[in-house]
Protein backbone atom coordinates (compact mmCIF):
# COMPACT_ATOMS: atom_id res chain seq x y z
CA UNK A 1 0.00 0.00 0.00
CA UNK A 2 1.22 3.51 -0.64
CA UNK A 3 -0.04 6.96 0.08
CA UNK A 4 -1.08 9.79 -2.22
CA UNK A 5 -1.17 13.16 -0.46
CA UNK A 6 -3.11 14.74 -3.31
CA UNK A 7 -5.88 12.19 -3.07
CA UNK A 8 -6.03 12.84 0.67
CA UNK A 9 -6.00 16.57 0.11
CA UNK A 10 -9.01 16.32 -2.18
CA UNK A 11 -11.05 15.34 0.88
CA UNK A 12 -10.48 18.75 2.46
CA UNK A 13 -12.88 21.40 1.17
CA UNK A 14 -10.95 24.27 2.66
CA UNK A 15 -7.72 23.22 1.00
CA UNK A 16 -9.45 22.95 -2.36
CA UNK A 17 -10.72 26.51 -2.34
CA UNK A 18 -9.22 29.00 -4.73
CA UNK A 19 -7.30 31.13 -2.34
CA UNK A 20 -5.42 34.12 -3.61
CA UNK A 21 -2.53 33.70 -3.00
CA UNK A 22 -2.69 29.89 -2.94
CA UNK A 23 -2.99 28.51 0.57
CA UNK A 24 -0.16 26.51 2.11
CA UNK A 25 -1.60 25.43 5.42
CA UNK A 26 1.25 24.60 7.76
CA UNK A 27 -0.44 25.23 11.10
CA UNK A 28 -1.66 21.68 11.58
CA UNK A 29 -0.26 21.30 15.07
CA UNK A 30 -2.63 24.05 16.21
CA UNK A 31 -5.65 22.71 14.33
CA UNK A 32 -5.75 20.39 11.36
CA UNK A 33 -8.30 20.86 8.64
CA UNK A 34 -11.43 18.73 8.79
CA UNK A 35 -12.09 15.96 6.27
CA UNK A 36 -15.25 16.11 4.17
CA UNK A 37 -16.46 12.67 5.36
CA UNK A 38 -16.41 14.09 8.89
CA UNK A 39 -18.61 17.03 7.94
CA UNK A 40 -20.89 14.65 6.07
CA UNK A 41 -21.15 12.25 9.00
CA UNK A 42 -22.07 15.11 11.33
CA UNK A 43 -24.59 16.47 8.88
CA UNK A 44 -26.15 13.05 8.37
CA UNK A 45 -26.33 12.49 12.11
CA UNK A 46 -27.88 15.87 12.81
CA UNK A 47 -30.47 15.48 10.10
CA UNK A 48 -31.46 11.86 10.72
CA UNK A 49 -30.57 10.79 14.26
CA UNK A 50 -30.36 13.83 16.46
CA UNK A 51 -31.52 13.22 20.03
CA UNK A 52 -30.11 13.04 23.50
CA UNK A 53 -28.39 9.78 24.32
CA UNK A 54 -28.62 7.01 26.89
CA UNK A 55 -31.93 7.88 28.48
CA UNK A 56 -34.54 7.87 25.73
CA UNK A 57 -36.43 4.93 24.26
CA UNK A 58 -37.79 6.56 21.11
CA UNK A 59 -36.19 5.71 17.79
CA UNK A 60 -34.15 8.90 17.46
CA UNK A 61 -32.78 8.43 20.97
CA UNK A 62 -31.96 4.82 20.12
CA UNK A 63 -30.25 5.90 16.91
CA UNK A 64 -28.27 8.65 18.64
CA UNK A 65 -27.23 6.31 21.45
CA UNK A 66 -26.18 3.73 18.90
CA UNK A 67 -24.16 6.29 16.94
CA UNK A 68 -22.51 7.54 20.10
CA UNK A 69 -21.64 3.99 21.15
CA UNK A 70 -20.27 3.20 17.71
CA UNK A 71 -18.03 6.24 17.91
CA UNK A 72 -16.70 4.97 21.22
CA UNK A 73 -15.97 1.61 19.64
CA UNK A 74 -14.19 3.27 16.73
CA UNK A 75 -11.93 5.23 19.07
CA UNK A 76 -11.23 2.15 21.17
CA UNK A 77 -10.33 0.24 18.06
CA UNK A 78 -8.10 3.05 16.76
CA UNK A 79 -6.10 3.07 20.00
CA UNK A 80 -6.27 -0.71 20.37
CA UNK A 81 -7.96 -0.34 23.73
CA UNK A 82 -9.13 -3.52 25.44
CA UNK A 83 -12.70 -2.33 25.81
CA UNK A 84 -14.79 0.59 24.49
CA UNK A 85 -15.65 1.42 28.09
CA UNK A 86 -12.05 2.54 28.52
CA UNK A 87 -12.82 5.50 26.26
CA UNK A 88 -14.09 8.66 27.93
CA UNK A 89 -15.28 11.43 25.67
CA UNK A 90 -14.33 14.90 26.83
CA UNK A 91 -14.51 18.33 25.26
CA UNK A 92 -10.85 18.22 24.26
CA UNK A 93 -7.38 17.10 25.18
CA UNK A 94 -7.13 19.86 27.77
CA UNK A 95 -10.36 18.71 29.38
CA UNK A 96 -9.07 15.13 29.42
CA UNK A 97 -5.88 16.22 31.18
CA UNK A 98 -7.87 18.21 33.72
CA UNK A 99 -10.10 15.21 34.29
CA UNK A 100 -7.09 13.10 35.22
CA UNK A 101 -5.61 15.87 37.36
CA UNK A 102 -8.85 16.01 39.33
CA UNK A 103 -10.00 12.38 39.40
CA UNK A 104 -6.62 10.72 39.75
CA UNK A 105 -5.42 13.77 41.67
CA UNK A 106 -8.10 13.13 44.29
CA UNK A 107 -6.42 9.80 45.08
CA UNK A 108 -3.09 11.45 45.92
CA UNK A 109 -1.85 12.49 49.34
CA UNK A 110 0.20 15.54 50.21
CA UNK A 111 3.83 14.78 49.47
CA UNK A 112 2.98 12.38 46.65
CA UNK A 113 4.68 13.44 43.46
CA UNK A 114 3.68 13.95 39.86
CA UNK A 115 6.41 14.13 37.27
CA UNK A 116 5.96 16.31 34.20
CA UNK A 117 8.54 17.78 31.86
CA UNK A 118 9.88 21.04 30.57
CA UNK A 119 8.64 20.01 27.14
CA UNK A 120 4.95 20.05 28.03
CA UNK A 121 2.14 22.04 26.54
CA UNK A 122 0.51 24.32 29.14
CA UNK A 123 -2.42 21.91 29.19
CA UNK A 124 -0.16 19.30 30.77
CA UNK A 125 1.44 21.75 33.19
CA UNK A 126 -1.20 24.04 34.59
CA UNK A 127 -3.66 21.34 35.76
CA UNK A 128 -0.85 19.79 37.80
CA UNK A 129 0.21 23.13 39.23
CA UNK A 130 -3.37 23.72 40.27
CA UNK A 131 -3.48 20.25 41.83
CA UNK A 132 -0.25 21.02 43.66
CA UNK A 133 -1.66 24.26 44.98
CA UNK A 134 -4.93 22.57 46.01
CA UNK A 135 -3.54 19.48 47.67
CA UNK A 136 0.15 19.85 48.44
CA UNK A 137 1.51 17.23 46.09
CA UNK A 138 5.00 17.73 44.75
CA UNK A 139 5.69 18.50 41.12
CA UNK A 140 8.94 17.23 39.61
CA UNK A 141 10.11 18.24 36.18
CA UNK A 142 12.15 16.31 33.62
CA UNK A 143 14.38 18.85 31.86
CA UNK A 144 14.94 18.92 28.11
CA UNK A 145 18.23 18.45 26.37
CA UNK A 146 19.65 21.14 24.14
CA UNK A 147 18.03 19.25 21.28
CA UNK A 148 14.59 19.49 22.82
CA UNK A 149 14.22 15.88 23.93
CA UNK A 150 13.36 14.69 27.40
CA UNK A 151 16.58 14.18 29.29
CA UNK A 152 15.85 10.64 30.44
CA UNK A 153 19.30 10.23 31.94
CA UNK A 154 17.92 12.23 34.84
CA UNK A 155 14.95 9.91 35.41
CA UNK A 156 16.59 8.07 38.32
CA UNK A 157 16.99 11.37 40.18
CA UNK A 158 13.47 12.51 39.49
CA UNK A 159 11.37 9.38 39.88
CA UNK A 160 11.29 8.15 43.44
CA UNK A 161 9.20 6.32 45.99
CA UNK A 162 6.69 9.18 46.23
CA UNK A 163 6.15 9.33 42.46
CA UNK A 164 2.56 8.43 41.67
CA UNK A 165 2.33 9.57 38.07
CA UNK A 166 4.58 10.49 35.18
CA UNK A 167 2.63 12.70 32.78
CA UNK A 168 4.50 13.66 29.65
CA UNK A 169 3.88 14.44 26.05
CA UNK A 170 4.08 11.66 23.49
CA UNK A 171 5.27 14.10 20.82
CA UNK A 172 6.33 17.67 21.46
CA UNK A 173 4.33 20.41 19.78
CA UNK A 174 7.46 22.58 19.63
CA UNK A 175 10.58 20.49 19.14
CA UNK A 176 8.78 17.62 17.47
CA UNK A 177 10.70 15.20 19.70
CA UNK A 178 9.04 11.82 20.14
CA UNK A 179 9.16 10.48 23.64
CA UNK A 180 10.93 7.21 24.30
CA UNK A 181 8.11 5.63 26.22
CA UNK A 182 9.78 2.39 27.29
CA UNK A 183 12.23 3.80 29.85
CA UNK A 184 9.51 6.00 31.32
CA UNK A 185 7.12 3.10 31.77
CA UNK A 186 9.94 1.06 33.33
CA UNK A 187 10.85 3.83 35.73
CA UNK A 188 7.23 4.27 36.71
CA UNK A 189 6.60 0.56 37.17
CA UNK A 190 9.66 0.28 39.38
CA UNK A 191 8.04 2.59 41.92
CA UNK A 192 4.41 1.64 41.30
CA UNK A 193 3.59 4.89 39.50
CA UNK A 194 1.23 5.42 36.59
CA UNK A 195 2.09 6.88 33.20
CA UNK A 196 0.07 9.37 31.21
CA UNK A 197 0.88 10.31 27.63
CA UNK A 198 -0.42 13.47 26.01
CA UNK A 199 -0.97 12.22 22.49
CA UNK A 200 -2.36 15.42 20.98
CA UNK A 201 0.51 15.60 18.46
CA UNK A 202 0.92 11.88 17.89
CA UNK A 203 -2.50 10.50 17.01
CA UNK A 204 -2.78 12.59 13.81
CA UNK A 205 0.33 11.06 12.28
CA UNK A 206 1.13 7.67 13.72
CA UNK A 207 -0.17 4.35 14.86
CA UNK A 208 -0.93 4.48 18.57
CA UNK A 209 -1.40 1.23 20.46
CA UNK A 210 -2.08 1.90 24.11
CA UNK A 211 -1.57 -1.72 25.05
CA UNK A 212 1.78 -1.93 23.33
CA UNK A 213 2.84 1.38 24.88
CA UNK A 214 2.12 -0.04 28.31
CA UNK A 215 0.88 3.27 29.67
CA UNK A 216 -2.13 3.96 31.88
CA UNK A 217 -3.68 7.15 30.51
CA UNK A 218 -3.67 8.54 26.99
CA UNK A 219 -5.40 11.58 25.59
CA UNK A 220 -5.85 13.56 22.42
CA UNK A 221 -8.08 16.13 20.69
CA UNK A 222 -10.51 15.71 17.80
CA UNK A 223 -9.63 18.92 15.98
CA UNK A 224 -6.03 17.87 15.44
CA UNK A 225 -6.95 14.51 13.90
CA UNK A 226 -9.03 15.96 11.04
CA UNK A 227 -12.14 15.73 13.18
CA UNK A 228 -14.42 18.22 14.86
CA UNK A 229 -13.72 20.84 17.43
CA UNK A 230 -15.11 20.47 20.91
CA UNK A 231 -14.23 16.83 21.48
CA UNK A 232 -11.34 14.96 23.00
CA UNK A 233 -10.61 11.56 24.34
CA UNK A 234 -9.26 10.15 27.54
CA UNK A 235 -8.31 6.53 27.42
CA UNK A 236 -7.46 4.80 30.67
CA UNK A 237 -7.18 1.21 31.80
CA UNK A 238 -10.52 -0.20 32.81
CA UNK A 239 -9.51 -1.17 36.33
CA UNK A 240 -7.97 2.24 36.88
CA UNK A 241 -11.07 4.09 35.72
CA UNK A 242 -13.23 1.89 37.90
CA UNK A 243 -11.34 3.08 40.98
CA UNK A 244 -11.38 6.79 40.23
CA UNK A 245 -13.94 9.20 41.64
CA UNK A 246 -15.81 11.39 39.19
CA UNK A 247 -14.71 14.88 38.26
CA UNK A 248 -17.68 16.82 36.88
CA UNK A 249 -21.13 16.27 38.37
CA UNK A 250 -24.44 16.24 36.58
CA UNK A 251 -26.77 14.18 34.48
CA UNK A 252 -25.73 10.81 33.04
CA UNK A 253 -22.87 10.19 35.47
CA UNK A 254 -24.89 9.08 38.45
CA UNK A 255 -26.37 5.86 39.67
CA UNK A 256 -28.65 7.36 42.26
CA UNK A 257 -29.02 10.99 43.34
CA UNK A 258 -30.40 11.72 46.75
CA UNK A 259 -30.16 15.15 48.27
CA UNK A 260 -28.11 13.69 51.07
CA UNK A 261 -25.84 11.51 48.99
CA UNK A 262 -25.20 10.41 45.46
CA UNK A 263 -23.68 7.28 43.96
CA UNK A 264 -21.85 7.06 40.68
CA UNK A 265 -22.42 5.23 37.45
CA UNK A 266 -19.67 2.91 36.23
CA UNK A 267 -17.10 4.20 33.71
CA UNK A 268 -17.15 5.70 31.16
CA UNK A 269 -20.47 7.36 32.12
CA UNK A 270 -19.09 8.32 35.52
CA UNK A 271 -16.76 10.72 33.75
CA UNK A 272 -19.20 12.09 31.20
CA UNK A 273 -21.42 14.47 33.13
CA UNK A 274 -24.18 16.17 31.19
CA UNK A 275 -25.17 15.81 27.58
CA UNK A 276 -21.98 14.71 25.84
CA UNK A 277 -20.65 16.03 22.52
CA UNK A 278 -22.71 13.53 20.53
CA UNK A 279 -22.42 14.90 17.02
CA UNK A 280 -18.74 15.58 17.66
CA UNK A 281 -18.19 11.99 18.76
CA UNK A 282 -19.84 10.85 15.54
CA UNK A 283 -17.54 13.20 13.65
CA UNK A 284 -14.48 11.97 15.50
CA UNK A 285 -15.43 8.40 14.68
CA UNK A 286 -15.66 9.36 11.02
CA UNK A 287 -12.29 11.13 11.22
CA UNK A 288 -10.54 8.11 12.69
CA UNK A 289 -12.16 5.81 10.14
CA UNK A 290 -11.00 8.19 7.41
CA UNK A 291 -7.50 8.23 8.87
CA UNK A 292 -7.56 4.45 9.23
CA UNK A 293 -8.26 4.04 5.54
CA UNK A 294 -4.74 5.24 4.81
CA UNK A 295 -1.58 3.24 5.17
CA UNK A 296 -0.27 4.94 8.26
CA UNK A 297 3.27 3.70 7.69
CA UNK A 298 3.28 5.21 4.22
CA UNK A 299 1.87 8.41 5.71
CA UNK A 300 4.74 8.34 8.17
CA UNK A 301 7.31 8.03 5.40
CA UNK A 302 5.67 10.84 3.44
CA UNK A 303 5.77 13.13 6.46
CA UNK A 304 9.32 12.17 7.32
CA UNK A 305 10.49 13.09 3.83
CA UNK A 306 8.65 16.42 3.95
CA UNK A 307 10.03 17.20 7.37
CA UNK A 308 13.51 16.48 6.18
CA UNK A 309 12.99 18.72 3.14
CA UNK A 310 11.85 21.48 5.46
CA UNK A 311 14.73 21.09 7.89
CA UNK A 312 17.28 20.99 5.10
CA UNK A 313 15.73 23.99 3.42
CA UNK A 314 15.97 25.92 6.67
CA UNK A 315 19.61 24.92 7.03
CA UNK A 316 20.22 26.27 3.53
CA UNK A 317 19.10 29.71 4.69
CA UNK A 318 22.11 29.69 6.97
CA UNK A 319 22.38 27.94 10.32
CA UNK A 320 23.57 31.19 11.91
CA UNK A 321 20.46 33.01 10.65
CA UNK A 322 17.91 30.26 11.23
CA UNK A 323 18.25 28.09 14.28
CA UNK A 324 16.16 24.92 13.99
CA UNK A 325 14.91 23.48 17.25
CA UNK A 326 14.52 19.78 17.85
CA UNK A 327 16.35 16.50 17.62
CA UNK A 328 19.04 15.89 15.04
CA UNK A 329 18.77 13.20 12.45
CA UNK A 330 19.69 10.45 14.89
CA UNK A 331 16.43 10.78 16.75
CA UNK A 332 12.84 10.37 15.68
CA UNK A 333 10.77 13.51 15.31
CA UNK A 334 7.23 14.37 14.44
CA UNK A 335 6.30 16.37 11.35
CA UNK A 336 6.74 19.85 12.71
CA UNK A 337 9.65 22.24 12.79
CA UNK A 338 10.03 25.26 15.03
CA UNK A 339 12.86 27.69 14.45
CA UNK A 340 14.32 30.86 15.85
CA UNK A 341 15.67 33.71 13.76
CA UNK A 342 17.73 35.98 16.03
CA UNK A 343 16.60 39.52 15.39
CA UNK A 344 13.34 38.63 13.65
CA UNK A 345 10.28 38.09 15.75
CA UNK A 346 8.09 35.03 15.04
CA UNK A 347 4.97 37.18 14.70
CA UNK A 348 6.59 39.28 12.04
CA UNK A 349 7.75 36.19 10.20
CA UNK A 350 4.34 34.55 10.43
CA UNK A 351 2.65 37.73 9.27
CA UNK A 352 4.95 38.12 6.28
CA UNK A 353 4.56 34.45 5.37
CA UNK A 354 0.80 34.88 5.47
CA UNK A 355 1.21 37.49 2.78
CA UNK A 356 2.45 34.64 0.61
CA UNK A 357 -0.39 32.33 1.57
CA UNK A 358 1.78 30.34 3.96
CA UNK A 359 0.02 29.74 7.28
CA UNK A 360 2.47 29.07 10.10
CA UNK A 361 2.39 29.91 13.76
CA UNK A 362 4.59 32.29 15.67
CA UNK A 363 4.67 32.47 19.43
CA UNK A 364 5.25 30.38 22.50
CA UNK A 365 3.02 27.53 21.31
CA UNK A 366 1.60 27.20 24.83
CA UNK A 367 4.98 26.05 26.04
CA UNK A 368 6.40 29.01 27.95
CA UNK A 369 8.57 26.91 30.27
CA UNK A 370 10.26 25.43 27.21
CA UNK A 371 10.70 28.91 25.77
CA UNK A 372 12.25 29.94 29.09
CA UNK A 373 14.61 26.97 28.89
CA UNK A 374 15.70 28.20 25.47
CA UNK A 375 15.52 31.83 26.62
CA UNK A 376 13.26 32.69 23.71
CA UNK A 377 10.04 34.68 23.62
CA UNK A 378 8.77 32.40 20.91
CA UNK A 379 9.54 30.59 17.73
CA UNK A 380 8.04 30.20 14.30
CA UNK A 381 6.55 26.78 13.69
CA UNK A 382 5.61 25.05 10.46
CA UNK A 383 3.64 21.90 11.16
CA UNK A 384 2.67 19.33 8.57
CA UNK A 385 -0.20 16.98 8.02
CA UNK A 386 -0.64 14.14 5.60
CA UNK A 387 -2.23 16.38 2.95
CA UNK A 388 0.81 18.65 2.69
CA UNK A 389 3.29 18.23 -0.12
CA UNK A 390 6.64 19.48 -1.31
CA UNK A 391 5.03 22.55 -2.86
CA UNK A 392 3.83 23.61 0.59
CA UNK A 393 7.28 23.21 2.04
CA UNK A 394 8.95 25.03 -0.82
CA UNK A 395 6.48 27.90 -0.68
CA UNK A 396 7.23 28.23 3.02
CA UNK A 397 10.98 28.32 2.46
CA UNK A 398 10.72 30.82 -0.35
CA UNK A 399 8.45 33.13 1.58
CA UNK A 400 10.75 32.87 4.56
CA UNK A 401 13.73 33.95 2.52
CA UNK A 402 11.80 37.03 1.35
CA UNK A 403 10.65 37.81 4.88
CA UNK A 404 14.14 37.61 6.31
CA UNK A 405 15.42 39.98 3.66
CA UNK A 406 12.86 42.46 4.91
CA UNK A 407 13.33 41.95 8.63
CA UNK A 408 17.05 41.47 9.05
Amino acid at each position, binding site marked *: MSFDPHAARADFPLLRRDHEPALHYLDNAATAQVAAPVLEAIHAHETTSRANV*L*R*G*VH*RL*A*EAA*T*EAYGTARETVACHLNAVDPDEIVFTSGCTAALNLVAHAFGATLAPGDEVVISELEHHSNIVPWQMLRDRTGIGLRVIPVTEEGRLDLTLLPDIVGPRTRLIAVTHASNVTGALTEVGPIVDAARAVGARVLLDGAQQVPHARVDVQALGVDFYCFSGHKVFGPNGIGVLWARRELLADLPPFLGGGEM*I*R*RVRLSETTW*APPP*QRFEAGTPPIAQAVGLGAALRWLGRHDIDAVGRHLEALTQRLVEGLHTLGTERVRVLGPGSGHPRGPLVAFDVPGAHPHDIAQLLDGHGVAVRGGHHCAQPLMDAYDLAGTTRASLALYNDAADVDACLEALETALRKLL
Partner: protein
Amino acid sequence: MSTDLYQEGLLALAGAAEGEGRLDDPDVTLTLDNPLCGDRVTLDLHCDQAGRIAALGHHVRGCVLCRAAANLLGQQAIGQDAASLDTLQRAIKGALRGRHAWPTDERWQDLTLFEPAAAHKSRHECVLLPFEAVVEALRQHGEGGATGT
Protein backbone atom coordinates in the same frame (compact mmCIF):
# COMPACT_ATOMS: atom_id res chain seq x y z
CA MET B 1 -42.18 -2.74 15.32
CA SER B 2 -41.74 -1.66 18.86
CA THR B 3 -45.27 -2.78 19.79
CA ASP B 4 -44.14 -6.35 19.21
CA LEU B 5 -42.54 -5.96 22.56
CA TYR B 6 -45.87 -5.84 24.27
CA GLN B 7 -47.16 -9.29 23.39
CA GLU B 8 -49.93 -10.88 25.41
CA GLY B 9 -47.51 -13.35 26.95
CA LEU B 10 -45.18 -10.63 28.20
CA LEU B 11 -48.00 -8.55 29.60
CA ALA B 12 -49.34 -11.66 31.34
CA LEU B 13 -45.96 -12.47 32.86
CA ALA B 14 -45.57 -8.87 33.99
CA GLY B 15 -48.92 -9.15 35.74
CA ALA B 16 -48.28 -12.57 37.21
CA ALA B 17 -47.00 -11.41 40.59
CA GLU B 18 -44.76 -14.48 41.01
CA GLY B 19 -42.61 -13.94 44.06
CA GLU B 20 -43.97 -10.45 44.47
CA GLY B 21 -43.71 -9.07 47.97
CA ARG B 22 -41.06 -8.88 50.66
CA LEU B 23 -39.78 -11.82 52.74
CA ASP B 24 -39.68 -11.82 56.51
CA ASP B 25 -36.21 -12.02 57.94
CA PRO B 26 -34.32 -12.45 54.66
CA ASP B 27 -30.79 -13.79 54.56
CA VAL B 28 -29.92 -11.06 52.17
CA THR B 29 -31.66 -7.95 50.83
CA LEU B 30 -30.52 -5.93 47.90
CA THR B 31 -31.81 -2.89 46.06
CA LEU B 32 -30.52 -2.10 42.61
CA ASP B 33 -31.29 0.98 40.55
CA ASN B 34 -31.07 1.51 36.86
CA PRO B 35 -29.40 4.91 36.80
CA LEU B 36 -30.66 5.66 33.32
CA CYS B 37 -34.37 5.39 34.03
CA GLY B 38 -34.84 5.22 37.77
CA ASP B 39 -36.17 1.66 37.77
CA ARG B 40 -35.54 -0.08 41.05
CA VAL B 41 -35.60 -3.70 42.11
CA THR B 42 -35.52 -4.80 45.74
CA LEU B 43 -34.86 -8.46 46.34
CA ASP B 44 -35.12 -10.54 49.52
CA LEU B 45 -33.60 -14.01 49.53
CA HIS B 46 -33.59 -16.99 51.81
CA CYS B 47 -30.73 -19.30 50.97
CA ASP B 48 -29.98 -22.89 51.93
CA GLN B 49 -26.67 -24.15 53.28
CA ALA B 50 -25.34 -24.74 49.79
CA GLY B 51 -26.06 -21.14 48.81
CA ARG B 52 -29.05 -22.01 46.69
CA ILE B 53 -32.11 -19.80 46.72
CA ALA B 54 -34.76 -21.21 49.05
CA ALA B 55 -37.20 -18.33 48.78
CA LEU B 56 -37.32 -15.12 46.79
CA GLY B 57 -39.40 -12.02 47.27
CA HIS B 58 -39.19 -8.94 45.08
CA HIS B 59 -40.50 -5.46 44.95
CA VAL B 60 -40.16 -3.81 41.57
CA ARG B 61 -40.69 -0.22 40.61
CA GLY B 62 -40.18 -0.72 36.95
CA CYS B 63 -41.61 -1.23 33.53
CA VAL B 64 -43.36 -4.23 32.01
CA LEU B 65 -40.04 -5.74 30.99
CA CYS B 66 -38.54 -5.36 34.42
CA ARG B 67 -41.61 -6.71 36.19
CA ALA B 68 -41.84 -9.64 33.83
CA ALA B 69 -38.18 -10.45 34.40
CA ALA B 70 -38.62 -10.29 38.17
CA ASN B 71 -41.66 -12.53 38.00
CA LEU B 72 -39.77 -15.02 35.85
CA LEU B 73 -37.14 -15.14 38.58
CA GLY B 74 -39.89 -15.52 41.16
CA GLN B 75 -41.16 -18.56 39.23
CA GLN B 76 -37.89 -20.21 38.37
CA ALA B 77 -35.01 -19.10 40.60
CA ILE B 78 -35.78 -21.34 43.57
CA GLY B 79 -33.01 -23.89 43.88
CA GLN B 80 -30.59 -21.93 41.70
CA ASP B 81 -27.20 -20.81 42.94
CA ALA B 82 -24.86 -17.92 42.24
CA ALA B 83 -22.92 -19.68 39.50
CA SER B 84 -25.93 -20.78 37.48
CA LEU B 85 -27.62 -17.40 37.73
CA ASP B 86 -24.43 -15.60 36.83
CA THR B 87 -24.16 -17.74 33.72
CA LEU B 88 -27.80 -17.09 32.95
CA GLN B 89 -27.42 -13.34 33.37
CA ARG B 90 -24.46 -13.25 31.00
CA ALA B 91 -26.35 -15.38 28.51
CA ILE B 92 -29.31 -13.00 28.53
CA LYS B 93 -27.00 -10.00 28.13
CA GLY B 94 -25.26 -11.62 25.19
CA ALA B 95 -28.53 -12.64 23.59
CA LEU B 96 -29.98 -9.13 23.91
CA ARG B 97 -26.88 -7.72 22.26
CA GLY B 98 -27.21 -10.21 19.44
CA ARG B 99 -23.94 -11.88 20.34
CA HIS B 100 -25.43 -15.37 20.60
CA ALA B 101 -28.76 -17.24 20.69
CA TRP B 102 -31.14 -17.16 23.61
CA PRO B 103 -30.73 -19.82 26.28
CA THR B 104 -32.79 -22.91 25.45
CA ASP B 105 -32.88 -24.35 28.96
CA GLU B 106 -36.48 -25.42 29.51
CA ARG B 107 -36.64 -23.80 32.92
CA TRP B 108 -36.03 -20.43 31.31
CA GLN B 109 -38.07 -20.91 28.15
CA ASP B 110 -40.17 -17.82 28.90
CA LEU B 111 -37.07 -15.78 28.13
CA THR B 112 -38.27 -15.89 24.52
CA LEU B 113 -40.80 -13.27 25.57
CA PHE B 114 -37.90 -10.84 25.82
CA GLU B 115 -36.55 -11.51 22.35
CA PRO B 116 -38.16 -8.41 20.77
CA ALA B 117 -36.35 -6.28 23.36
CA ALA B 118 -33.08 -7.06 21.61
CA ALA B 119 -34.02 -4.52 18.94
CA HIS B 120 -34.39 -1.81 21.59
CA LYS B 121 -31.03 -1.26 23.16
CA SER B 122 -32.36 1.28 25.63
CA ARG B 123 -34.56 -1.42 27.14
CA HIS B 124 -31.93 -4.10 27.64
CA GLU B 125 -31.19 -2.89 31.13
CA CYS B 126 -34.88 -3.13 32.04
CA VAL B 127 -34.74 -6.87 31.37
CA LEU B 128 -31.37 -7.34 32.98
CA LEU B 129 -31.88 -5.43 36.22
CA PRO B 130 -33.62 -8.24 38.19
CA PHE B 131 -31.06 -10.77 37.00
CA GLU B 132 -28.19 -8.49 37.97
CA ALA B 133 -29.81 -7.94 41.33
CA VAL B 134 -30.12 -11.64 42.10
CA VAL B 135 -26.52 -12.31 41.08
CA GLU B 136 -25.28 -9.44 43.24
CA ALA B 137 -27.47 -10.51 46.17
CA LEU B 138 -26.05 -14.04 46.04
CA ARG B 139 -22.54 -12.65 45.78
CA GLN B 140 -23.08 -10.56 48.88
CA HIS B 141 -24.64 -13.52 50.65
CA GLY B 142 -21.62 -15.61 49.73
CA GLU B 143 -19.37 -12.93 51.22
CA GLY B 144 -21.06 -13.25 54.56
CA GLY B 145 -24.60 -12.08 54.06
CA ALA B 146 -23.94 -8.35 54.30
CA THR B 147 -27.16 -6.43 53.80
CA GLY B 148 -26.57 -4.22 50.81
CA THR B 149 -28.47 -1.22 49.61
